[in-house]
């Protein structure tokens, strides 16, 4: 089981959304990290064969996924960023409809639908119309539909958007228990989700693969670029204007800043262990004044 993305480029007019992207994915959970417009969603659409590459190809088991057609889609589960549903369908009807599209016979569809609805905590809501659901409930339903056919390749675009912390924990557990012998690709802005679930992280910038590896190894690349310093509020403002601030804490007249910078940002700054958020900021946030400096106060 090997999904290969070979020198894939996707252009929209003059704009290059995915630029000569190559990666080979075997079973495991892959977290796609990148700023807005980095090309994550486009890449996922390409993987799902609902968007054709301008150049390059995507193969599964050595065969182009478009050629595999129905056989490839049979292995696929997809949750797009904008989850399109039918407001007047009940959760049960919606799942049964997609199950029939995924080729499940009626009894298997029913069994799987009830099982998944229970897993995502919507069993008691199965007869209710989707339009009555909250954003989180809809998102859970979206995740469930993607898993109906026990997909070998599961592609989840922003799956945790709209989920509360408890639902996010449930989601992580669900993905962990599901990930055996499957390729799971997920993108999220919530860095901690990726940190917990992903076996491997792929960093994307301007449509290109920036780096790839497990959380620890990838974090290592910014090992000497994260600093902490406690300064006066006045000095903090100056630092904030010059550097990327990943965190700040106010206490009395002092502010403790966590700074992402190549060089020591302040003579009293000390090197600290980086985390994935620092890494994210290191790669994706340009230096700009941080408005949060006057908003976050921990006394």
């Amino acid at each position, binding site marked *: 089981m090997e999904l290969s993305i070979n020198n894939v480029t996707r252009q929209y007019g003059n704009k290059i959304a995915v630029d000569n992207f190559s990666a080979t994915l075997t079973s495991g959970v892959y977290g796609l990290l990148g700023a807005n417009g980095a090309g994550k969603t486009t890449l996922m659409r390409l993987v799902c064969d*609902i968007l054709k590459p301008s150049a390059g190809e995507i193969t599964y088991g050595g065969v182009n996924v478009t050629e595999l057609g*129905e056989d490839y*889609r049979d292995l696929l589960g997809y949750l797009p960023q904008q989850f*399109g549903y*039918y407001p007047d369908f009940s959760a049960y009807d919606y799942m049964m409809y997609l199950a029939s*599209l995924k080729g499940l016979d009626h009894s298997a569809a029913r069994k799987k639908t009830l099982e998944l609805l229970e897993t995502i905590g919507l069993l008691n809501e199965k007869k209710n119309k989707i339009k009555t659901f909250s954003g989180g409930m809809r998102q859970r339903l979206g995740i469930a*539909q993607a898993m109906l056919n026990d997909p070998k390749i599961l592609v989840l675009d922003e799956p945790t958007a709209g989920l509360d912390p408890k639902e996010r924990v449930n989601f992580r557990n669900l993905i962990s228990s599901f990930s055996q012998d499957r390729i799971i690709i997920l993108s999220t802005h919530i860095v901690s989700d990726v940190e917990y679930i992903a076996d491997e992280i792929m960093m994307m910038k301007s449509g290109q693969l920036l780096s790839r590896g497990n959380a620890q190894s990838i974090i290592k690349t910014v090992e000497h670029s994260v600093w902490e310093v406690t300064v006066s509020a006045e000095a903090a403002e100056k630092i904030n204007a010059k550097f990327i601030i990943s965190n700040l804490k106010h206490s009395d007249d002092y502010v403790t800043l966590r700074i992402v910078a190549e060089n020591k940002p302040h003579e009293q700054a000390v090197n600290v262990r980086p985390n994935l958020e620092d890494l994210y900021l290191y790669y994706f946030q340009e230096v700009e004044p941080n408005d949060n400096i006057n908003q976050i106060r921990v006394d």
Partner: protein
Amino acid sequence: MITLIKYELTKLFRRRTTKVLLIASFALCLILLVGSLLTFEITDSNMNIRRGMSAIEYDRTTQKQFAGEYSTKEATALLAKIEAVNNNPQYKRTENQPANNPSPLTDEAYYKYLKKYDPVWTIINYQQAFPELITEVERGDLFQIYQQKAKSLDDMKNIPAPDPNNPVAQKLTAMYKNVKIPFHIDYIEGWNKLIYGFSQILALLISAIVIICLSPMFSDEYSTGAAAILLTTKHGKNKLIKAKIAAAFAFNTSVFLIFALLYTAFYGLTYGFSGAASNIQTSADFLISPYNLTMSELFLRVLGIGYLGLMCLTAITLFISSKSRNAYTALIPLAAILFLPLIDFSGISKVLQKILLLFPIHVMRVSEIYPMANFYNIFGLLFDQASMAIIISVLLIIVFVPLSYRAFKSYQEQG
């Protein structure tokens, strides 16, 4: 596959627009039908005005007296009888006597003795003149034909000089010679209203229902983002599209049948079905029609060709839906395709007008096709409007259904 079709129909019928439109249309038709019944009035032989069912009953009983076929001899005898009434000095009104009838008789005499002959008198006159019409057409003189088709005086300006070798004249001659004479006369008011009423409601209302309800068929999947999920499922790029197309045709067939049944049942129960075997030439709209059809045969053509027109419109709707990003942008070109051909462009271009007559709205208005034959010369072969409507509709269905299939299948999720 059946399951998928059921789901597509469920999606369609659960839409609020569909529900509201179907209920409103059905109610509107009922109001129109009942309204036309209640406002139908006739003055009886005693000069009393009858309305509604009483008027229909009176009209039917009166006209039924003249049902049958009239040989030339019988027709001449009947015309003589009518002439005798017309010329009866006892019934004549004086110069200064006020009257409210088109004859030279007093109102009492007209309503009592003459009015009942009006419909049969017209038919018999046309029947008697039919051989003469055939001779004229055979000579290549198409004056009467052009007169029948003319919508304005301008249309009468370019009548070709009589020419027996004119292929249109030859074709018409063959058609006229095929018309069964003597005409079978009967009470046909029910068929008349059914044929005209259903043709109009099909072209103006059912067609609108179809484009409004079916325009979201594919486009809504794009605009709601559902397409991204559907197209990544096993059957999303094959069976699903077939199911959508099948559901669309099942929907239009159901709507067509419901309204056809409503109209047939209504006119059957009120006016009755007598006159099924009457020539269409016994109806005021078809007096010199070259088609050898009975009223029931014409109604079957209204159903058949009208249904084909609706199928064609469905195929076009599906295609435009598959190419539009939402139902509203699909509706604009669809409304234009449906209703723009109703504008008379013959003043600008006769060819354009003839082409527009093959658009779905004219195909569905079958009652407008048969009063006179309208020919299309295709590489030297003459096809009448009905045949062309069938050929073009079938071709458009054959072209647009696979194009819709392909468009949805190759949809690329962008933006």
